[in-house]
C-alpha cells in the first residue's frame, strides 16, 4: 500500500463520503435559511455570529492548552492590535509559542 498513484476502492469511498458530508455542511445552512426573510432579530444574530463562532473555537482550545498557547495567543492579539496585520500576528504568536516551548 501507500504507493504514489494508487487508488484503493475503500479509500476513495471514504474520501467521497467525507467530501459529500463536508459539502452538505457548507451548502446546507445556506440552503435552509435562504428562503427566510431575515427579521431584525435574525439580522442581529447573523451579524454577531462570526465573532461568536471564532471565540467558541478559540476559548476551549486555549483552556486545554498550556503556557505555550496562552503566550502565543496573547502575542498574536497584541501584534494584530498594534499593526492591523494578521500575518505579523501569526508570525509573532507562533514565534512566541516556539520560544516558550524551547524554554520549558
Amino acid at each position, binding site marked *: 500500500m501507500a504507493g504514489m498513484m494508487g487508488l484503493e476502492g475503500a479509500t476513495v469511498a471514504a474520501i467521497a463520503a467525507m467530501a459529500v458530508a463536508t459539502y452538505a*455542511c457548507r451548502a446546507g445552512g445556506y440552503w435552509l435559511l435562504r428562503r427566510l426573510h431575515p427579521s431584525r432579530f435574525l439580522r442581529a444574530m447573523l451579524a454577531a455570529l462570526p465573532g461568536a463562532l471564532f471565540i467558541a473555537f478559540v476559548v476551549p482550545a486555549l483552556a486545554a492548552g498550556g503556557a505555550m498557547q496562552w503566550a502565543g495567543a496573547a502575542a498574536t492579539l497584541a501584534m494584530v492590535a498594534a499593526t492591523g496585520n494578521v500575518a505579523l500576528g501569526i508570525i509573532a504568536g507562533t514565534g512566541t509559542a516556539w520560544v516558550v516551548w524551547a524554554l520549558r
Partner: protein
Amino acid sequence: MAETEPPAAAPPVIFTAAGIRHGMRRAAWLTIGMAPFGLAVGMLSERHGLSLAETVLMNALVFAGTSQIVALEHWSHPAPLIGPLVAAFAVNLRMALMGPVLAPWLDRLQGWRKLATLHLVVDHSFALSVLEMQRGGRDAGFLFGAGLALWLSWLAASTVGRLAGGVLALPAGHPLFFAALAAIVSLLVPLWRGRRDLLPWVVAGIVALLVARVAPGSSWYIIAGALAGSLAAGLRGGA
C-alpha cells in the same frame, strides 16, 4: 453594518476577476498559518497508508483540515467508511452557520460560481469575507478568490507533507502547529465590532467551555457557543 444602508440604493452584488484577485491577495498572508496544518495532514496521510493520489484527492475534495485529522487518526486498512463520514459531518457542521451570513453574496451567484464558491468556504475565507462585507464590499468574487488562495496553498502544503512524511516528522505538540490556532486568533481583532460584541463573545466563550467539558472529543462546543453568543445578541436587539 449593511443594515444601515437603504436597500434600494445598494449597488448590486457582482462577481469579477478583480474581486477574485483582491480576495486572493487578502488571503495570501493567512496561508502562512495554514501551511503547518497542511503539512501535518499530509504527514498523517503518509503514516496511515494513503497514496499520493489519494492524499491529493482528499485535500482537494474535503478541504477541511481538522475533520481530516480526526478521520485520519482513526484510519485503518482497508479504509473505514462510517468513522470518516461522521467525523466530517460533526467537525464541519460549524460551516453550516457560515452560509447564512454570506447569503447576501451567495444569493446573487448562479451555476458553477455558486457551487464552487460554497466549496471554498473555510474559516479564514469566511472571516475575511465578513470583514469585506462590513466595509461595504459587493464583489462576491472576493470570497471565491480568498477560498481559492487557501485551497491552492492547502493542496501544496499537504502534498509536501505527504512526500516528506517518511523523512521528517514533527511531534504532535510542536509549536509550528500553533500557527493554525494563531491564524484564527489573529482574526478576532478585526472581527471585534466594539462594546456591543462583549455580550455575545462572553456568552459564546462560556457556553463553548461548558459544552467542551460535557462532550469532550467532539466539536459541538463550537456550534453551541456560536449559537448561544449570537442568540444573546439577537435577543438584546439592535444590530
